């Protein structure tokens, strides 16, 4: 059975199905992700893109199928265990701590002191400070370290959430619509950022903005009604008549 086969893929999703009261939001999905690969999933609204991420990160429990991350089965782990295994996820609407400063947001995401007693004894030392500054610089927020996160622009909030994942140094980074609400310039900066951070890890991005997708994607998968409609190079996918009909045509 494929439940027990080991693969070289960072992420191997096999026969994954989830049904909400009989409605199959994800239907018998097979999906593979390589190391160093930046893979973009596109598809119309309600195609099940966000649900796939929910399944991988443990927010939603699958009905059947398997999700293997570095040959480790994720479907029976709890959310925080999946994070500890090396999976980081950005939500569709920026999910940051609005009442805390940028620095505190990054500090909470720092992968030390995650236990009760560890967090009580956690020392905000030079190593932590340097790491926070490094990530803040990467996400272009180094000047806003002491700003309350709620006061950031929408684009900056998106960056902050990406930064909160980067500081955990995950092997798999999942970003749900990272450039929604961003200006053209911010999109360019984000594309650059994603190209940089995809080195040494796998990145799974959900996006609607085709121009942006073309700039970053190594591979594209089109999802429709919980099933894969097409997969491959951006160019091939764009030419695919089925894809044009359900997604790109309108």
């Amino acid at each position, binding site marked *: 059975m494929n439940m027990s086969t080991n693969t070289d893929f960072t992420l191997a999703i096999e026969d994954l199905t989830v049904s909400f009261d009989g409605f199959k939001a994800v239907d018998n999905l097979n999906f593979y992700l390589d190391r160093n690969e930046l893979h973009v999933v596109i598809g119309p609204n309600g195609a099940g893109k966000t649900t796939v991420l929910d399944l991988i990160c443990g927010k939603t429990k699958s009905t059947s199928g398997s999700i293997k991350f570095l040959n480790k089965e994720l479907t029976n782990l709890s959310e*925080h265990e999946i994070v*500890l295994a090396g999976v980081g996820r950005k*939500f569709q609407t920026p*999910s*940051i701590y609005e009442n805390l400063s940028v620095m505190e947001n990054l500090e909470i995401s720092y*992968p030390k002191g995650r*236990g009760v007693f560890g*967090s009580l*004894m*956690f020392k905000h030392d030079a190593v932590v400070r340097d790491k926070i500054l490094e990530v803040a610089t990467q996400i272009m927020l180094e000047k806003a370290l002491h700003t309350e996160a709620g006061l950031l622009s929408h684009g900056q909030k998106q960056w902050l959430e990406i930064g909160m994942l980067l500081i955990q140094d995950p092997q798999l980074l999942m970003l749900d619509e990272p450039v929604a609400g961003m200006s053209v310039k911010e999109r360019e900066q984000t594309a650059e950022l994603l190209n940089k951070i995809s080195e040494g890890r796998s990145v799974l991005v959900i996006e609607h903005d085709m121009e942006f997708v073309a700039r970053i994607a190594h591979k594209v998968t089109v999802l429709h009604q919980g099933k894969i409609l097409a997969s491959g190079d951006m160019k091939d996918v764009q030419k695919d008549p089925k894809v044009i009909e359900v997604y790109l045509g309108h």
Partner: protein
Amino acid sequence: MSFVYEKLFGDKKGLIGFCILAALILVVFPVMLDSFRLNLVGKYLTYAFAAVSLVLLWGYGGTLSLGQGIFFGIGGYAMAMFLKLEASSPENTAIQSTPGIPDFMDWNQITELPLFWMPFHSFSFTLFAVLVVPTIFAYIIGAAMFKRRVGGVYFAIITQVVSVILTVLIVGQQGLTGGINGITDLRTLNGWDITSDSAKTLFYFINCFLLLAVIIASRFILTSKFGRILLAMRDKEDRVRFSGYDVANFKIFIFCFAAMISAIGGAMFTLQVGFMSPSFVGIVPSIEMVIFAAIGGRMSLIGAVYGTLLINFGKTAFSESFPELWLFLMGGLFIAVVMFFPNGLAGLWEDYGHHLTKRLDFIKNLFSKSKSAADAIELKGSKS
């Protein structure tokens, strides 16, 4: 808002607030009040433990417990059981049909000390029980609820239900617990008369030091990364989970810590007041504790102490003249605070305190100016 704890405690202003409170309860009250009033304030300050625990649990943790009376009560009862056993020595109870057991047991035809009372012959065990039994109890409730992701209103209701059940149990098992009257006639601790004025004054000071120590410990928790995680959880629990934290463990810990603090208050209550009864366990006291914290400011450890003192002074003063009106007044006050001053007294201080500080600065400036003027005059004088 988010930096409230730093403002209140992390910097100079926080230290000043702490010192003012310490001076008030350690110096001003003992100097100003006679021993009867001081004992009364001491009693109020035992409730402050529960109010402080709610600042942690509710204000920062976002989890409202309507059952802190449970833990206050367990702490109080543990202490009362020890004192009662000492008061029930065979010599003191020679007229009973079974000498050597508490009087209420004898009245209920119990002829042997129940097993769970036995260890309370030991004072060290009692102190251990005051701290550990409520913590374990909170752990059981917390693990059962938080691991299943029960929170918010449901958690509040469940804690309330537990406090009702506990009250019913205590009242119903009269022979084992003293029933509705509670455990009374507590007189000595290891032979030392605890009803004397000197003992009561000593307990008052012990109580104050414990309260200040609890505030410092709480402040340590809130200024650590744990404190930031509490705030983050209150804001976006899911994000915390997806940053790799087992959210339930953090809630369980803070609930256990809050339980332990409340229990210390309960034990000090028994020592200072000389009895313990189910009326400090049930719904009404538990809700009163929430009101103390709300009025003081649920984000302020020190505010919670002032809230407790203020409401209890008010209660004592008011209920002497209009006892039936007091509950309505307190309810109204609570609603008003929640609606108009969500941060309570501490919030008022935050909002209007700076006027006061400004005035102080003005006066300070005045003095320093007049001082430099005086210096100038002096200089002139020395020149001539």
